[in-house]
């Protein structure tokens, strides 16, 4: 029982990670692959934030009458990672738009064949 209480957070993270991973390798559509990549990315965020949590702790902003704070370091890493994540997602989406323009499709198996013609 205590195993479940101690680890369920990490297990859900692994599940989300694998859902994202599956979308990345199994989906044919490039936009869907990018959504999968984002799901994977968010699962990593949740993993970090879970590790920073202290039971009975509070948000790391000094306030009266609070003695335990959660670990602020993972928060810093993930805060910047989210903004960088959306910026890199934008680059990925821009690449998809260019692929659509060059090949006329965003389905992976369709433009793979066209590659040999060029």
């Amino acid at each position, binding site marked *: 029982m205590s195993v479940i209480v101690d680890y369920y957070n990490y297990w859900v993270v*692994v599940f989300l990670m694998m859902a994202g991973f599956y979308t990345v390798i199994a989906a044919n559509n490039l936009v869907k692959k990018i959504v999968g990549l*984002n799901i994977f990315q*968010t699962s990593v965020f*949740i993993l970090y934030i879970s590790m920073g949590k202290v039971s009975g702790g509070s*948000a790391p902003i000094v306030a009266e009458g609070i003695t*335990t704070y959660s670990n602020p370091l993972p928060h810093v890493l*993930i805060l910047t990672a989210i903004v960088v994540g*959306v910026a890199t997602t934008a680059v990925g989406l821009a690449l998809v738009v260019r692929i659509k323009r060059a090949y006329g499709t965003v389905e992976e198996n369709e433009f793979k064949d066209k590659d040999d013609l060029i």
Partner: protein
Amino acid sequence: MAELINLLLLGMLAVTALGVVFLKDLFAVVMLFGIYSFLSALIFVNLDAVDVAFTEAAVGAGISTVLMLGTLSLTGRQEKMSGHKTLLPLLVVVTTGAALIYGTLDMPPFGNPENPVHQHVALRYIQDSPQEIGLPNMVTSVLASYRGFDTLGETAVVFAAAIGVLSLLGLPKQDRAAIESGLESHLVLKVVAKIIIPLIILFALYVQFHGDYGPGGGFQAGVIAAAAIILYALVFGLPLATQVVQPGLLKALAALGVLLYAGTGVASFFLGGNFLDYNVLAADPVAGQHLGIILIELGVGITVFAAMLSIFYAFASKAERKNIQ
């Protein structure tokens, strides 16, 4: 109680992820991704990471959905059924997942204060940063001061990503002959948007300068301010928006933000400290720290605002051009 809420939220998150994997309508996938972002922000609040939740809220609701919808309007809505074999990917995923779950059993238990992560630098940040930096928000202290060099790198990455998108898609050309666009028939929408856009910009400024005391800071403020202009462009049309905030100006602003950040570092360099060591910026070290943090947060805010908005302009101009032809 917090554990129960956490469990319910995680459960909903898992269901949403499954929906994203199995739905074929890409529009629905993007919509569900919006819900996914809401849920992860709620989980961050529940796990005490308010600053992270703030960022996820601003980014998820304001930017990423808009960008994905812009891409969909260019690439098409429906995912084609594939003759792909799904068995092999499933096998790979299940194996990897099983290995990872086996791996988690060696991790220290969730939330235990004795965990190794909490024994190292975190103690110093929690105990000393309010005195050393003088700010109640430890996340801002660590972000802008202790790990300032890291954040400079992140800002540069956002800047580089904006350059990448612009070189792939190109900035919109300023058409003087404004094309009729926008949600012309939605009168109520236009009136409410006029009321709400100034409020969003005002709130962005509050987040920018209140980030030292509560949740918030340059990253969030930049995204929120960009979201205000995005709302303007969506309701009144892109040509009007590019006249208000010109794409050329954004290019200059994006560079200016990074320069302001790096310049603060160089200034502290010349005043006799280390790179990004704000203690020397004023006579009193704590005042110097505060000045330095305000400056670099401003730099971050300007760069993020300009980068996010020019990325949006690039996508939106492609979408409008395609639909007008």
